[in-house]
């Protein structure tokens, strides 16, 4: 079976976009630039979700992440003064140790992936057994269907968590309660 040409192409394009965006996020002086790079990364990831046959998650990613959370970030960046922070030293004193620790972690990942995948194809691409149009209904059934709703309670708890987070954010951001 010949593999489709478009799939690797888009995968590497999007992966490169995400890696470059991630690097930009952690290296830019200006927090606005970082935020824009992060949006780029998130949008590329949403595209990857589509490639993984997860259209609902991709939509949620675009609407919630790129739309909601990132707007929140930009608002906060405008609220606080970042000019001074942009002129200062960007990395803390332990940056070398931090990179070393991350490198150790990366080395460990590489070691794990190489040793466990030696000579065989791990995690082959699964077959999609239903149409994309049913994806959203299936997730909804898992979340709040009366018969199949495995995660109904967790879903309600998540809504409560959001409520508490909203109230907590307001309390902390207000000048005087």
């Amino acid at each position, binding site marked *: 079976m010949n593999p489709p040409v478009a799939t690797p192409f888009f995968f590497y394009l999007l992966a490169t976009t995400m890696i470059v965006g991630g690097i930009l996020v952690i290296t830019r002086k200006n927090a606005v630039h970082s935020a824009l790079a992060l949006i780029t990364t998130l949008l590329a990831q949403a595209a990857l979700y589509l490639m993984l*046959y997860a259209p609902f998650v991709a939509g949620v990613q675009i609407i919630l992440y790129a739309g909601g959370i990132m707007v929140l970030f930009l608002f906060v960046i405008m609220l606080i003064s970042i000019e001074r922070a942009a002129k200062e030293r960007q990395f803390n004193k332990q940056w070398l140790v931090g990179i070393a620790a991350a490198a150790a972690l990366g080395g460990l990942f590489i070691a794990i992936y190489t040793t466990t995948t030696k000579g065989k194809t791990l995690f082959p691409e699964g077959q999609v057994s*239903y149409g994309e149009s049913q994806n959203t209904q299936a997730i909804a059934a898992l979340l709040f269907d009366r018969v199949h709703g495995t995660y109904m309670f967790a879903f309600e708890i998540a809504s409560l968590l959001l409520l508490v987070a909203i109230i907590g954010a307001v309390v902390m951001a207000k000048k005087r309660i």
Partner: protein
Amino acid sequence: MEAMLHITTLHYLVLGAALFLLGVIGVLTRRNVVIVLMSIELILNAVNLNLVAFSRYWQGMPGHLGGPGALHGQVFAIFVITDAAAEAAVGLGILIAFFRNKETVNVDEVNLLKW
């Protein structure tokens, strides 16, 4: 080359690991707390990518978690996104309070947890 062209779950896992490491580096080394928060978003997204990738993988597997109904990874991704939103709201609230009190966004200028 064969392995490179045939996109498997492992590719997504490697990409997720790379994003995760970038996020870890950002969290450990940047002074600007806004960017630290963004790095945390990077880490969460790396995890999300893994979850969705495994969801795609399990859809081809038999068994009670696999099969056509194996959307648990995606549901988890949605929960993680929900948590990320809550985390971003609370984290940015803390950030505003912090900036108001200390007139700075540099996370290493606060060491009240000492001793």
